[in-house]
């Protein structure tokens, strides 16, 4: 479904992504791991169009999307959540998710119908599946960090993506919250038939839910394979797993 080939991106002299390769098949849960600064977030920014790549190809559903602006990539069916909470802090929880739903339904430019009568069911559905329905009237900026991270994902789901990219969905969460969130993600993937690409620091989580793992280091892909293959790879052990 998603194919990344020999992707390069540099900031001034620093090669943030230096030959990344990634394959994500339909319905798979794929993890990207690597030490801090390995280029995971940059890779996600490149895929979603937030940054422009220098070299390489990004192919989504057999179409090259590497030149498209973020909003068009999103319309193609790729949605993402962010490592650092990136929501609409002054809007309510409901409005946060609704913005994405309206955009997906191409009704954002409707000028004269009250927004609170449009796309209500779809928005509530998403909030319900994320367990946020009780808080729908709260102002997003006043939620706890854990809830904001969940809302992050809810906003991303508003676009009914085929491929959902989660950049450290559990960053800053307590172990219990982490467990609950990952269960949620797994359930979502099954229920909505989502393909998920995520990165995460907690190796237990990665190895328990990912079907395929891509390891990055210094912006480069070391290997992509099943958890067993990755665990058995010598280079990975030296570079990363052994180091911990």
């Amino acid at each position: 479904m998603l194919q990344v080939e020999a992707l390069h991106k540099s900031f001034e002299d620093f090669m943030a992504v230096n030959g990344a390769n990634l394959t994500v098949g339909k319905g798979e849960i794929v993890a990207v791991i690597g030490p801090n600064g390995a280029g995971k977030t940059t890779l996600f920014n490149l895929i979603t169009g937030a940054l422009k790549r220098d070299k390489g190809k990004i192919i989504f559903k057999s179409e090259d999307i590497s030149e498209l602006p973020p909003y068009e990539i999103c319309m193609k069916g790729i949605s993402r959540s962010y490592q650092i909470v990136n929501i609409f802090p002054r809007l309510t929880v409901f409005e946060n998710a609704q913005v994405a739903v309206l955009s997906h339904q191409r009704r954002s430019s409707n000028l004269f119908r009250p927004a609170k009568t449009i796309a209500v069911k779809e928005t509530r559905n998403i909030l319900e599946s994320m367990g946020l329905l009780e808080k729908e009237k709260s102002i997003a900026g006043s939620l706890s960090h854990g809830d904001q991270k969940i809302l992050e994902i809810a906003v991303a789901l508003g676009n009914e993506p085929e491929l959902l990219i989660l950049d450290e969905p559990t960053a800053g969460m307590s172990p219990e919250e982490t467990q609950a969130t990952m269960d949620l993600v797994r359930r979502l993937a099954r229920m909505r038939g989502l393909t998920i690409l995520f990165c995460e620091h907690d190796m237990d989580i990665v190895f328990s839910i990912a079907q395929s793992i891509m390891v990055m280091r210094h912006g480069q892909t070391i290997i992509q394979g099943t958890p067993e293959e990755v665990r058995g790879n010598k280079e990975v052990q030296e570079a990363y797993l052994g180091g911990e």
Partner: protein
Amino acid sequence: MFKNIVYSKWFGFVAGILIVLIILPLFVPRFFVYIFALIYVTSLLAMSLNMVVGYGGMFQFHHAVFYGVGAYTVALMLTKSSMPTWIGFIAGPIVAAFTGLIIGWFCVRLTRLYFGMLQISLGSLIWAIVFRWYGFTGGDDGIHGVPMPSIISSLNGSYYFILIIFLICLVVMYMVIKSPFGSTLQAIRDNSQRCEAVGINVRRYQLLGIVIATFFAGVAGVLFVALERSVFAEMLFWVLSLEIFIMCLLGGWFTFAGPILGAAITVALRTFVGRYTEYWTLILGVMLILVIFFLPEGVMGFFQGLFKPGIKEATERGKR
């Protein structure tokens, strides 16, 4: 249940105010009728600015230009041609919105402060043209004695005309703010990067927001001509832009009605304190400082905060 009561209370409140405004000319002196009409015009202008600044998060520093363009359009059309008045009244806002489209087209390519700086420059350019082009715009003399149809040529006539148009504009603006477009605009204000990531063409929406807001600024310009029957180059000067910016801050720029309050305070100060001293802006300045320190959401925002917990916290987190 609680909410319904609040809404019905609001309904009574609004209906009460409306009745007072409608019967006002019957029992107050002419001068106050004029001041109230001026407050409506100024409120509409401030609210149109608030649409881009408060709801859209764009630094539209020089918004008065579109007010001036609307006013000059109608004044020029009515003095230099024999076109029916209503065509001039419609042309004012349309020309203002078109000017907004052109200036906005450049500005939305930049962000934050750069947006604001370009906006000031392009706006000042229009001011300079109006100010210098004596033969056409009358330069710093302005245009006086714009003919008006008899129905709105009396003070009470123009008062009711302005009140009606003002109320219609309020309803339309409220609908726009509450529409999906309004939500999207606020989402862009809160987080434009995330908006792009959920499939929103941010620039296009910002531009549409500017066009709508400048249209209403043009309406305010037309209403000013209906009230004063003259236009001045000062209407496009940056000082007025600053003044309406202050009105939004003062009243509360995240609230719908805040700018009305800000405009009323400013017009009242200018009229009643300005009569005694030309330094009335000093009082405005002190008020602004107090508001910024103690009511950072503006006067209206403060009261809204009492009903809507969470907003304040959200703002404070946003500052970090």
